[in-house]
Structure formats: C-alpha cells, structure tokens
C-alpha cells in the first residue's frame, strides 16, 4: 500500500500493563520505535496498546473500549481474536509489533481520507459530529451511552441540517433539466447493505458480519440490534459515498466469534435508528431513483420520532402525508418549506418501509382538507402554536 502515512509519530496510550511491563515497553518505544510512536495520556491518544494478560486486562480493555473508539493493538501470550483490534503475540517480536503500528497508521490515514470525502459531500463543515448528535435535553432518567444511538433528537444547528438534508437549492427541484440531481440509488450505499445483512442473518438465524473498508459491524438477529463501535465521524463518510463493491464483505458468523458484550453495551444500536441515519446521510435531499415526484405520498405509520433523528419540519410533513397523501413537489408548495427537507424525510421513511402506496382502503381520517384555513379556528390555531412552542423548548 502506498498511501502516505501520518507525518508525526503515532500518539499511543497504554492499557492494562503492569509496572514492569510498562517500563519495558517504554524503553522499547524510546529505543527501536522512537520515530514510530510516542506515549501520551488517554485523551490525546490516537491509538491504544493493550495488554490482555495483565491484571484486570480483559475487564480494563472492555471498559476502555466503551470510551475509546480509536484503533488498538492488543497483546497476549495466547492467540486471540479481538473485534476491531490488531492482535500481536507476546513476548513481542519487534518486526510484528512495528507492522501492527504501521497498520494502525494506515487505518488512521483512511479515516482522514474518509473524513475529507464527507466534508466534500456535505456543504459546510459539520464538526464535531459525534458530540453534536447529542440530545440537547438533559435527561436524568435515561441518559443513553455515547454513540450513534444518541441520534434521536432535534436537529438544531444549521450545519447539522446540511449533513442530514443536504444543500440542494429549491430551484433544482423545480427545473426539469436538473432532475438528475434529485435521485440516488440506495443499494449502492451503506444504507443498502444493512437490510441485506439483516436478511441474511434472519435467514440463517445467525449473526452477520459486515466488513467495509477495514471497518466491521455485526447484525444480531436475536436482539435485532447492530453491534458497531464505528464512530460517527467514520460512519458518516462511509454512508455518504457509493461503496465500491470489492470493498464490502458480508457473511454469517457463529455466535462465539462475536466480541463479548456487556449489559447495556454502548456499541449496540437499534437497527431502525441506524438505518434511518444512514438513509439521511446517503440521501442528502435526494430520493431513490424511480420515485415519482407527482405521486401522492402516504405513510403506513409515523416514524418513531421519539427515537429517530428528527429532521427540520419532519412532524409537519408526516402529519400531512398521514392525513392527506400529497406528492413530494406539492408538499413543498403546501407547507412552504425547502424541498430538500421533504425529500430527505421521504428517503428515510422509505428505508424503514413506512411509505405506502396510496388508496389502500379508506381510513377514518376526515376527508376535509387538512390544511384548509377553516378546519381549525384561528383562535385555536393560536393556542396550538403557542403550545407547540412551549413543547419544543427544552427545559
């Protein structure tokens, strides 16, 4: 591989080493490996070196993994398969160790490149995405762990909106010659892989392992969850670009090949929450190829907005589609909101199977025009508006 490597020594932190082992490794790093890596504290580290045989090694490693998502080199006397980490045998062989460090550097390099891809794909910078996904409301009762599952929440900052709804201007949606800009093929994106993984897992009633450009995640059919410690700043770039076929591997794995799980493991994500995000990232204001922009859109059920990332005006759009099937182009006109918000929401609903063909039976939603001025009195609208404002405030 000829990818240029990072131009500074790799910053590493040590985990699970007893004092003697640590001193020895430090000496080694200062000697043979001095240009290759430097020891730093956990918060500065780009990578970790972990001794699984040390006192509390395995437990320390699990705890460390739940807060550190960077690459790791794990060492042990007995051969080990460790999810998302490189294993090297103890006692250390200098060559093997240096090779492992080299792989780590290459991986960091890929991350940087992916990051650039994501930057190019979404207009202004949307940094730092991981923290920015955090739910703004503080919730003493159930404060979820770190990671993508935190996604449920309102998008409140302009830059984040770009990441989820794209930045296609309204003119593109209204200009027939620019139609090509409005479509994408979900199957070519990460978004298309996740349902495939689920299908395969359900067919065999076994976990499925998905490898994408050096990153791994699992679909677990029993809990219907996705096991992944890919950070959002990596996941997003992997989702915004069409994936080259050879870069993807998918196969069933026996239960014992899964990384050990802790109760309430932060690496477990709801399939729907993740797929929803992936669809938004891939869509960025576009809809799946073949979608007719003039066919009325109807929902078979509302998206589970308490747990899914809520894009701007999502509730309004859902309410309209739910009560009165309305085409994509008409929706923008009637609600007077940017097309990209509507198209992005459509793609996410489509990914979750919530879009329904119209005219499937007559539901008891009143036939009158849902938006007609007289359907709700002016006084009542005023009340509803201020109640809404109040409910949207976070305490």
């Amino acid at each position: 591989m000829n990818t240029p490597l990072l131009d500074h020594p790799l910053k590493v932190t040590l985990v699970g080493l007893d004092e003697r082992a640590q001193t020895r490794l430090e000496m080694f790093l200062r000697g043979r490996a001095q240009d290759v890596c430097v020891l730093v504290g956990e918060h500065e580290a780009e990578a970790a070196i972990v001794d699984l045989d040390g006192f509390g090694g395995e437990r320390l490693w699990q705890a460390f993994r739940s807060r550190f998502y960077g690459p790791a080199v794990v060492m042990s006397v007995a051969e080990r398969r460790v999810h998302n980490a490189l294993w090297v045998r103890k006692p250390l062989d200098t060559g093997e160790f240096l090779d492992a460090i080299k792989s780590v550097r290459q991986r960091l390099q890929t991350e940087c490149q992916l990051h650039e891809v994501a930057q190019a794909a979404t207009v202004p910078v949307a940094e730092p995405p991981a923290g920015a996904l955090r739910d703004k409301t503080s919730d003493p009762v159930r404060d979820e762990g770190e990671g993508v599952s935190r996604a449920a929440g309102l998008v409140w900052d302009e830059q984040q909106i770009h990441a989820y709804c794209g930045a296609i201007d309204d003119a593109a949606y209204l200009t027939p010659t620019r139609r090509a800009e409005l479509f994408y093929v979900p199957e070519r994106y990460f978004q298309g892989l996740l349902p495939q993984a689920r299908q395969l897992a359900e067919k065999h009633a076994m976990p499925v392992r998905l490898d994408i450009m050096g990153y791994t995640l699992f679909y677990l059919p029993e809990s219907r969850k996705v096991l992944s410690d890919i950070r959002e700043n990596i996941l997003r770039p992997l989702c915004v670009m069409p994936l080259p076929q050879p870069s993807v591997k998918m196969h069933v794995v026996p239960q014992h090949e899964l990384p050990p799980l802790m109760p309430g493991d932060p690496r477990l994500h709801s399939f729907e929450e993740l797929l929803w995000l992936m669809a938004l990232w891939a869509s960025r204001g576009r809809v799946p190829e073949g979608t007719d922009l003039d066919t009325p859109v109807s929902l078979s059920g509302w998206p589970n907005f308490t747990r899914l990332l809520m894009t701007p005006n999502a509730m309004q759009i859902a309410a309209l589609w739910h009560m009165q099937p309305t085409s994509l182009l008409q929706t923008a006109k009637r609600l007077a909101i940017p097309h990209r918000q509507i198209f992005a929401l459509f793609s996410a609903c489509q990914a979750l199977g919530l879009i329904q063909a119209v005219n499937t039976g007559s539901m008891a939603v009143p036939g009158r025009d849902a938006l007609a001025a007289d359907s709700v009195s002016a006084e009542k609208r005023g009340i509803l508006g201020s109640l809404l404002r109040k409910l949207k405030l976070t305490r």
Partner: protein
Amino acid sequence: MAQHKIIFAGPVGAGKTTAISVISDIPIVSTDESASDMTLVRKPNTTVAMDYGLMKLDGQERVHLYGTPGQERFNFMWDILTEGGLGLVLLLDNTRVNPFKDMSFYVGAFREFIDQTRLVIGVTRMDERQDPGLERYNAHLGTLGLKAPIFEVDARRRRDVAILVQALLYSLAPGIAADA
C-alpha cells in the same frame, strides 16, 4: 375564554400520571391511592379519580391536562373529562398481557371523542420489553379503522411526552407553525 384540555387515557400503570407530571407547569394534582386488589401486583399507587396538570402559555392562555383513572370501574369519569378536549393521548403498556386488547378497549370507549378530535398513542415500557413492536400497533389500529401517530414513549422522559403531544397538535393542523 374557551377551555383547552388534553386527555390522557390508558390502562393501569401505563404511565398517565407520570406523563402529565413531566409536562405540567404545576405540581400534579392527583388522587392516587394505595392500589388495592387487582392493581397491587403491578404498582403501589393507582389513580382513583383523575390526574390534573396545567401548561401555562404566553398571555393568559392555559392548557389543562387530565388523566383518566386507569381502572375500568371509574369509567363514569371518562365522558365528563373529554368534554371540549383537544384530543386524546392514549398510553399503552407494552409489557401487559395483551396490549392490543387494551387498544381496542380504549379506542372503543373514547371512539366518539376520537372521531371528533385526534388520537396519538404512546407505547410505554418498551425499554422492558421490545415486543410487540410499533409496526404491530399500527396494524392493529388499522383494523379498528383508524390511523394515528404511534411512538415509543417513556413516560418519565419529558422529551418523549412532548413529542407525542406535538404530534397530536400537528395532526389537528399540519399547517401550524411554532415560530408564528
């Protein structure tokens, strides 16, 4: 001035009292009693008459929040409470033996009110049991000839309850804007 109110209904222990308390601006007025006989196994307190909470809006406007008692022997209260309400928030407990039966029961009991206004459904305790999922609730509601927003809700989380009530408001009028 017209009275504005939102009604919370659902079986014993679904989270009505809790949901009202997390969005109310006043300490909730409740008529909880130690649960007797049938409810005792599930929880220590149950509402015997009703819950009352209040949301204060800009100006003098108020929205009253009423929780109906979960136990069916108090259902004489239900008609009185719904009079003039904006809509119904139905909470269903995912860990109950047959939450769909609960849905049918409450939708039936409040049918006239629902037909005149709007319905939203929050499914609670999904943290304790994943199944049945929301899809099946949607399907069951369809068999009752209705469509309504159905969300996973933890009644203890203000954000969940607030989103549920927002969906009720948007269902009443998708065109309303919060930033008016």
